[in-house]
């Protein structure tokens, strides 16, 4: 595929991600940390995030099903999830986590359940997009182009 076209696609995708609020400036910071000495930093961190998050989501689901519900445990998980999502700049997931945490503090099981569903949905959305973006970057690099930078 043409590098320029790929680059164009990449740019559009990134713009869309920012516009729709999936990502925030923290992600830009991550991108800036990437340099020749650390070429796949973003991809590495993203993968870490995906793995970690899936584990946490599973734990959360399990905890909410249990009886009685251990809200403290849930709170710890949510805190972790929130931390990693803000680290990577997954904005909407972070917002979802905040809602979930509020419900958790209120010990509102139903609210927690709904919020968790919301977070899950956000997570999968951002995961898909990010994977697509990373894939594009791989392709561009493979073609010998540079990754365009969005201001």
């Amino acid at each position, binding site marked *: 595929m043409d590098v320029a076209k790929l680059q164009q696609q990449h740019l559009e995708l990134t713009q869309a991600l920012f516009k729709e609020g999936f990502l925030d400036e*923290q992600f830009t*910071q*991550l991108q*800036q*940390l990437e*340099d020749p*000495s*650390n070429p796949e*930093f973003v991809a*590495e*961190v993203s993968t*870490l*995030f995906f793995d*970690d998050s899936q584990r946490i989501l599973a734990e959360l689901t399990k905890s909410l099903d249990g009886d009685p519900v251990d809200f403290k445990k849930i709170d*710890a998980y949510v*805190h*972790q999830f*929130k*931390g*990693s999502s*803000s*680290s*990577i*700049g997954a904005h909407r997931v972070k917002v979802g986590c905040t809602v979930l945490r509020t419900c958790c503090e209120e010990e509102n099981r139903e609210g927690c359940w709904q919020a968790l569903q919301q977070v899950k949905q956000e997570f999968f959305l951002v995961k898909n997009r990010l994977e697509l973006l990373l894939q594009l970057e791989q392709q561009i690099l493979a073609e010998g182009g540079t990754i365009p*930078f969005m*201001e």
Partner: protein
Amino acid sequence: MCQASSKKTMKCRTDAIAVGTGKGFQGSTIARSNYQLGPGRLPAKWWVQASAPPAICPSAPNMQNQRVAKRWHLRLLVLWVLAGISVSIWVFYSMNADIVKRRRERLLNMCEERAWMLQDQFVSSLNHVRALTALVTTFHLGKQPSALDQDTFAVYAARTSFERPLMTGVAYAIRVLHSQREQFEREQGWVIKKMHSNELQPAQDEYAPTVLTQDTLSHLASLDLMSGEEDHENILRARASGKGALTSPFRLLESNHLGVVLTFTVYTTDLPPDASPEERINKTAGYMGGAFDFESLVENLLRQLAESQAIIVNVYDITNKSNPLVMYGLNTSIGTTVSHISKLEFGDPLRKHEMRCRFYKQPPVPWSAITTSTGILVIVLLIGHILYAAVNRIEKVEEDYRKMEELKLLAESADVARSQFLATVSHEIRTPMNGVLGMLQMLMDTDLDATQCDYARTAHESGKQLIKLINEMLDQAKIESGRMELENIPFDLRIILDDILSLFSAEIKDRGIELAVFVSEKVPAVLVGDPVRLHQIITNLVGNSVKFTDRGHIFICVHLVDDENRVDVPNSQACTEQSVEVEEEESWNSCNTLSGLEAADKKMSWETFKLSLMHGSSEPTSSCLETSDTVNLLFSVEDTGVGIPYQAQERVFMPFMQADSSTSRNYGGTGIGLSISKCLVELMRGEMTFVSKPSVGTTFRFGLPLKKGDPSMFKSHAEANWRHPQNAPLPTKFKGKKALVVDGRPVRSQVTRYHLQRLGIFVEIICSNECCSAVSRVIARCETTNSSSSGATGNIDMVLIDKDAWGPNTGVDFPDSLKKQTDAGLNGLLTAPKLILLAMSLNDEEACKAQKAGFKDIVVKPLRASNIALCLQVALGFGNHRLKVRELTEGPGSMHNLLSGKHILVVDDNRVNRRVAEGALVKFGAHVECAESGREAIAKLQLPHKFDACFMDVQMPEMDGFEATRRIRKAEIAAAERLPRNGEVKNGKHTYRVPILAMTADVIQATPEECARCGMDGYVSKPFEEEQLYKAVAIFFEAAH
């Protein structure tokens, strides 16, 4: 009431004047306490007060008051005069009484003296007569025949007459009974004759014919003394008493003078003192008599005494008190009524005599008393008059003063009215003028031919001039009418000054004038005040300088007043002396000012400049630690222009006054700018002064007290209010870079340093008067850097050289000189510093030449942090777009410097977070290790370890960051005790102590206090924010450097 209020306004006005004239910058700051309510609004307030009570008000009660006062004065005056008169009368009387008393005393003394003398002589005469009786007894009666005859007696009596000074003579009469008459007459051979008539004495019981007489009384011989009435009586009394008896005064025989006769009885035998009168009569033998001729003898006596003329003496026989008989003296009608009476004792107890003395003349007029008292009276009256006149004068002056006050109020209110009118009218003019200008602008944009375009442009220019003038007048009027209100908002002084520089950069571009600004490090970054007005003041001053300067420099300089005061004013010779002192030979650089030309105010010379810099660096905390939130700044604008003629210097601050009319023709302008600047400065409670020398230059200086601001305040407030184009934040990417400034002029190099420091660049200055010595020093500096890679010196990233470093265009040849000394030039070194040229103006040709010589870039003056930053960006090769953006936001230069080679432990339970933090830190060159929990962190930080710092997540399961830190600190202290050898204490902290920074997602949770309490050294928020990370880390690693 009315008076009270008018007083108040008066007081207020004097206060205002005190501020207006302002004895000095210091003085005005002291006076500030009166105006806490609203700085800059004060004049308006006092005017409101001043104009509120109408001017006519104070007159009516004043008049009444004055009348009361006048009555009082009159009363006092009358009292005074009366008191004076009574005092003088009293003085007169007392003096007169004194005189009278003394006169009386004198009379007394004289009278007593006379009486005593008279008595004395009388008594002595009397005694002698008694002695004569003894003579007669002894020699006449005791002998038969008598041993005394008339001749003997006469001789004896004459010879002893001096013993009886008051007596005309003595005679002895014998007692002859009638039975013995015939025998007696026979014996004597004469008959007894009667006194006065000298006829034969008719028959009597007994007779007393005179037998012995003194020659003076020879007429008495053979006369019967018993026939004289007084003598008769006297004889009878004398022989009965046995003592001397005196007659009352009568006319003596022969002389017919007034006199008395003294009679002693001569007894035949001695009688006992208590003999009865009968016995005495029987034993009587004869009588010794003496005549006192008072009239002549007393007169003789008194004549011998002093001042015999002054008094009249009368002697009286007062035996019969109701009818005193005159013994001596003239008629009593002559002489004064004042008299003195002295008693006389003449030895006859029956007779009483007295002496009455009177002054011959009336007492003299008491002139001394009269003159003294009149003198006192005159003095009193004079003083009264003087006081009266003075009071009248004071009243008159007070009245005049009051009138003038009223007039002044009227005049001032008229002045305010004028200013208000101006303000209103100016405003009204401005509105249509804007329309005119806008239309002209639009007209110019339309399709016009050359002439029309020229006309339109001229009209537009004139319009702009007019509106500028109107604006200035509006300002002036606003200030005068007290309607100018100052803002109080935070601002960055350095940005304002940069903005002013860029404002004038175009104007001075081709004139060869150097325009520079320098702000002392100690001036706080954020100040609170009125930036717009401050901008206006400085722009006015600089504009003025630009107008009148065509060579040399214009230099804006801001210091703290404290620093400036600590620097002694150098003497006028300093300029030339210093030049010798600083470096060897300086032929072209005569003065150490910015451009090398002499400046009017020596305070700006390098020597003082250096001193104030020194103060600034040696006591960097002194200003920061000051408790007051106000800083006193001293602004100065120095130029080397035409200067102000001495005779015009006092008019400089008067509106519409230029030095002389020719000036305005040559340079244009209205001359209102300086006046406004001065007013504005005073409104800001500062003071403006200037020093100027014709054809040398002018330095305007003004001090301003400004409040210190807080950067946080600046961010919130200023971004909303201060809409200045230059407000774009300075790029931070140059932080930690090192620059070398090479220049021949110390002041200029300091200016360059100031701007570079603002960009966070570390600056070293090589200041030398010669190109070659500078070159060798630069090379030496660069080589040491490269050989010893210790962090203290660091690599030089750039070298900045002034184009006119050692004279015009000498800076351009600097690279060539470098090449001459080292074959390869600086490029031979490991890290070649970039060469940058600082130039006032540069044409294309010169630019090409500079490029060829090896300059990476050229910064065109006036220097500003922003234009230097732009050039450096190009020179240091931040060309790549992506990189550029990254640099702008992150500035890894400095972070890299700080963190490269450091071992850092990151503790976080979240894998993703851990990885991100690690990535960020690795990016800055740090070696990072990670720990998943507090426990693991403690294990890794067991001493000895290799870590330079630790980033610790606060919220972790099992053991949170606070707890972990506490345990780490405990372990460190224990270890320090275990290994005392190395347990040095540095800055109160163990060298073992590893800096631990908290990482936290929300700042609220990890308060600084909480962090400090458990032994953490700071905190950064997650995700890492560049600026914050830098600040937190810099504290440790910069200190380590």
